[in-house]
Each structure stands twice: as C-alpha cells, then as structure tokens.
C-alpha cells in the first residue's frame, strides 16, 4: 500500500496550486461579482494540457490519469469552484462521451480542439422534467429516410453550452420507444437554440443554460456509438463524472477550511485569537478529520478507475460523502468568520454559495444513497 503521490502527481498538484493561487485567485471575486465566464483562464489551462487531463497525448490530451484529473479539479476548487466546474464539466461530461464512445471520425474531428481548450464541450442529459429520473427523457430524434435525424425537445441546467468557446453538445434523445441514443450537436446548427445565462445561487462565473431543439437537423454522423446505446453510455459517463465532482467538493472544503483557520488565528476576541478557544478548535479539528477522510475516498475511487477495476460504488461513496462534508465545512467556516463571513469582503461567502449544488448536481445525495443501498442490499 502506498499513500504517497508519485513525483509526477505531486508536481502536477503543485503546479495547479500555484496557477490557481497566482492566476485564478486574484480575479475570482471579480468574475463572481460580474458573472463573467473566465475565457482567459480556460485558454491558459488549455495551454497547460489541463482541459483534457485524462485523454491521450495523441489526441491532444494531457496524458494523465484519473488521479491527475482529480488532483487538478481539487486544486482549482480550493480557489474557485466556477473554474473547477468549467474544467470538470468540459472533461467528464463534454469530452469523455466523444473520447470513450466516438467513432474515429468523431474523435478526429472534435478531440484536438476540445482537449486543448480551444473549444468547450457540454453534455445535455437533464431536462426540465427529467433530472434524477433521466430515463424520462422527452427529447426526440426522428430518423429520416437518409439516415439523418430531426431533433425536438429541451435540456436544462447545461454547463458550458453558451460560451464564446462552446463548440458542441452531446444530448440524450429518444430514437424509438424506450430507445435512448446520444447525438452530437454542434453550436450553430439551425434549430439548436441556447437561452441567456440562467440566474443562479452560486457558480456565477460558470456557464449554465437551457437548450431547445426545434426541428434541429443533424446528420447520420452525429450518432454517438451504436444507436440505442445512450442509456448505457450516460450511466458510465455519470459514474466517471462523480469522481471529479467529489474532487471539486473536496477542494472547496479544503479551501474553506484553510480560510477559517487563517481567520481564526488572526481574529481576536476577548483578548485572544479566537483559535485559542476550544469551541473554534473543535470545529477546525472536525473539518481537518472529515477532509482527510473525504480525500481518501476520492483518491481510492480514482485509483480503482485507473486500474480498470469497478469504481462506480467507490465513486458514489466519494460523491455522497464529500458533498455532505463540504456542506458542513463551509457552514462552520462561515460561522468562524462571524459577521464578516456573511459579507462579500471575504471569499468564504462565495464558497458558501458555491457549495450547495455539490449535493444536487451529477446525482443528488438521495440518488447516491439509492445507488449505494442497491449495491449493499
């Protein structure tokens, strides 16, 4: 058993940490306040190979593994969740369907631009009335005599579809009775409409949209993998995505904890730093403990996936635990900041707003419990 990171993983973690502290942190507050998508940061992450961490170098990827990817997301989320989710959604949800299930022509057409961050990819699964119940998809794709498809329907809460870099969305659609097929739709396709940015509680610098498809015509080459494989494909995509969302929750918790620790050492009350009070010390001790446990779960799930072993159960454990621990940690981190924690003067209020979605997105806490319960009963 070896709990040490390899030299390469440690070097990557240090590099992403420095980048996040030097490049992302100075603009995070402004991006959040102005609800501005970080185009320049995405471009720089692309140059560093971080917009396609787990994909092979031959297709333009970073040549890393799942652990490298999880470390990248954790370090970005330690500073800014909007940047972290932009990378995570692009990688796990946007690019991985094409990388894992795409034809040679599809991977050749899309991956070099996606892995380098020149273009962003989105994944359209959730619908206005089909969230956790993804099988209730209503978007329909009707095959035409020439093998092309006409798509009608709507998608909801889609990340990365509407930025100036957005190039492509993979959507789930019904192609027959109970038959779900994934289709690749390029931005600019007639009939593919993207809503203005949705207003939301947090993740203000990330791009979230509603998509509509009105007689949207896509060619036969838009079909991802065999027709009817959509359900199997998106379940696999979500399993992998859970590791990155767990890493995101872990990074957010780590960042919140460090801010609370720094503040508790600086802030004086009753003539002493508040870190001298046991009430504060116990909060910090609990945070440290839970974060350490969460980190082991995330790394174990990544380790299993990298060894080609079944990882879905471990990913669900990691997602559920880190989602809930990030809630507890950020809540107490704001509490330690007192009144200042409620002000936008400190980053901790942004962390608090950015946290809640981690218990909802890519499988709610309840769905994780269902998955875990099914596996053990």
């Amino acid at each position, binding site marked *: 058993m070896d709990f040490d990171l390899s*030299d390469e993983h440690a*070097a990557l973690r240090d590099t992403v940490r420095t980048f996040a502290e030097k490049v992302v942190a100075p603009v995070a507050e402004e991006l959040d306040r102005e609800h501005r998508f970080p185009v320049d940061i995405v471009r720089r992450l692309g140059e560093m190979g971080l917009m396609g961490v787990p994909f092979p170098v031959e297709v333009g990827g970073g040549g890393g593994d799942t652990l490298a990817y999880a470390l990248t997301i954790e370090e970005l989320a330690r500073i800014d969740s909007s940047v972290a989710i932009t990378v995570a959604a692009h990688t796990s949800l946007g690019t991985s369907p094409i990388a894992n299930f795409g034809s040679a022509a599809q991977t050749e057409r899309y991956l070099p631009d996606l892995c380098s961050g020149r273009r962003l990819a989105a994944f359209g699964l959730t619908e206005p009335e089909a969230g956790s119940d993804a099988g209730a998809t209503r978007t329909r794709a009707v095959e035409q005599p020439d093998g092309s498809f006409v798509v009608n329907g709507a998608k909801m809460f889609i990340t990365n579809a509407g930025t100036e870099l957005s190039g492509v969305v993979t959507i789930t659609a019904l192609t027959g009775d109970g038959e779900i097929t994934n289709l690749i739709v390029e931005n600019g396709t007639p009939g593919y409409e993207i809503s203005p940015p949705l207003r939301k509680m947090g993740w203000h610098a990330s791009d979230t949209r509603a998509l509509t498809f009105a007689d949207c015509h896509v060619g036969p080459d838009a079909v991802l993998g065999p027709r009817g494989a959509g359900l199997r494909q998106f379940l696999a995509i979500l399993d992998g995505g859970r590791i990155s969302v767990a890493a995101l929750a872990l990074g957010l918790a780590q960042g919140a904890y460090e801010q609370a620790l720094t503040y508790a050492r600086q802030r004086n009350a009753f003539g002493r730093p508040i870190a001298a009070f046991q009430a504060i010390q116990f909060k910090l001790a609990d945070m440290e403990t839970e974060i350490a446990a969460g980190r082991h779960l995330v790394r174990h799930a990544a380790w299993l996936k990298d060894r080609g072993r079944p990882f879905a159960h471990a990913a669900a454990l990691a997602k559920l635990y880190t989602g809930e621990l990030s809630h507890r940690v950020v809540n107490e981190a704001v509490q330690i900041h007192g009144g200042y924690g409620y002000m936008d003067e400190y980053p901790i209020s942004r962390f608090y707003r950015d946290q809640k979605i981690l218990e909802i997105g890519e499988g709610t806490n309840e769905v994780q419990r269902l998955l875990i319960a099914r596996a053990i009963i």
Partner: protein
Amino acid sequence: MKIAICVKEVPDPTAEKRIDPGTNRLVRTGENTLNPYDRHAIEEAVRIKESGVETEISIVLVGPASAARTVDKALAQGGDRSVHLADDGLADSDILATSRALAALLERDAYDLVLFGQQASDAECYVMAAAVAERLDRPCVSQAASLTLDGSTLRVKRQVETGYDTVEMPLPAVVSVSDAINEPRYPSLPAIMGAKRKPHEVLSLADAGIDPDTVGGAGSRTTVRGLSKPAGRGASVRIEDDGTAAEKILAFLVENKVVV
C-alpha cells in the same frame, strides 16, 4: 546552440525559513523545490529555442540524490536533458566549493551559454554566476533584463540602479537573468509526465573527476560563526491621515534629507 542552466533545490520559499541553532545552517528537511528565480533562466532558454535557433537545454544541478525531483521540475519547465552531481561528499559546500563543482560539470560539455537565476531564494547570495564564470574564464553579466542573440554575439540589457546598461559579449558566456526578464510559463501536464523520460545523467564526484578535498566542508573557506537577527528599525514615526498626511510625510522626508 548548447545552453546550460544551473539550478538549485531550495526549501519551499512559501514556508518560513528556520536555522538549526546547533549547526547554524538552514533547515532543509521540509518540502524542497526548484529555486523560483531559476524558472526565469529556463524560460529564457526556452524562448531562444522557440525563436528558431536549434538549441539543446541542459539542466545542471549540484545537490543530494533526493533533488532528482527538482531536476524533473526543471525539465518539465523546459529542459531537454539533465546533469546532476549527487554525492555525499558535497555536503557543507560553500560558494567557493559549489562553484568549483559547477564549473567542473560545465567543463564536461561545450556550452555556448550558461544561465543562472539572479539569486537563490534560500541563501540569497547573487554571486554564483560570477564565481562560476571566473572559474571558466568566461565573460559574465548579471541582472540581465533581456537577451538578444546575434550569431555568436550576445547582447544583454542589464538592469542597474539608474536604468539599463547594454552589454555585448562573445559566446561562450555566463549570464544571470533578473526576475523581470520574463514571466515563466507554467509547465504543461504532458511535460510534467514526460520529465522522467528525458535523459538524466547522475554523477558522483569520481565520475565528474572532482577531487573530494576541493568540495564539501573540506573545500570550503567560509564558516558561519554566529547568526543574529537584524537590528530593529529604531524609532519610527506614525502618521495618521487626517487630511494632512501627505504634507507631514513630505516634511519628514525633507527633514531627513531623503528628498530636497
């Protein structure tokens, strides 16, 4: 063109420096990393290479075997190969001894240009480039703010207190670059993953043909006799801004002949 970059492993510059009171030496048992000033030298070499000049960039390091990770960090930043002198006999080397070891390594190959960062973030001496140049009998410029290659001539804009000097020097030469010369890029993931696969040469003192008596404690000529904290700033004047702070500051500066 063959460029060598002399890099150093230093204690993590974001951590607080500690001195071992028994040995009067910097504690190096914590996290160690690449001297941040050296990144500017590597970046400058990479830019020369990217400008179209056929270039091989060698990372040269004197330090313990555990510094191999730092060598890889430097390679990920942009080196093609490394030369690492790792020998227990090097422990306790001062500037004189370390410059001897570096010069011996640099003499093994015909480097056109040897680059250094302006200083090391641990000892902050600023002089290693000059010491090595002296041993190699090569021209040396410090605090380079820009480098321009013109055939076998190197034009260096040198940052000085009053502005810039422009110096021309024939190659081969030794240059220490200022931290204002460029903004080093962040290493890419493929470069980080590929660093270990680049050619690494790890040498002992015997391999490098260095007499053990000329390096390490035996080859050093300085001894740290004592350490003390710098004297306090003495009496300071605190000015609260009630709308007249600027005038009060000016009066203070004039009174102390800082401005006239």
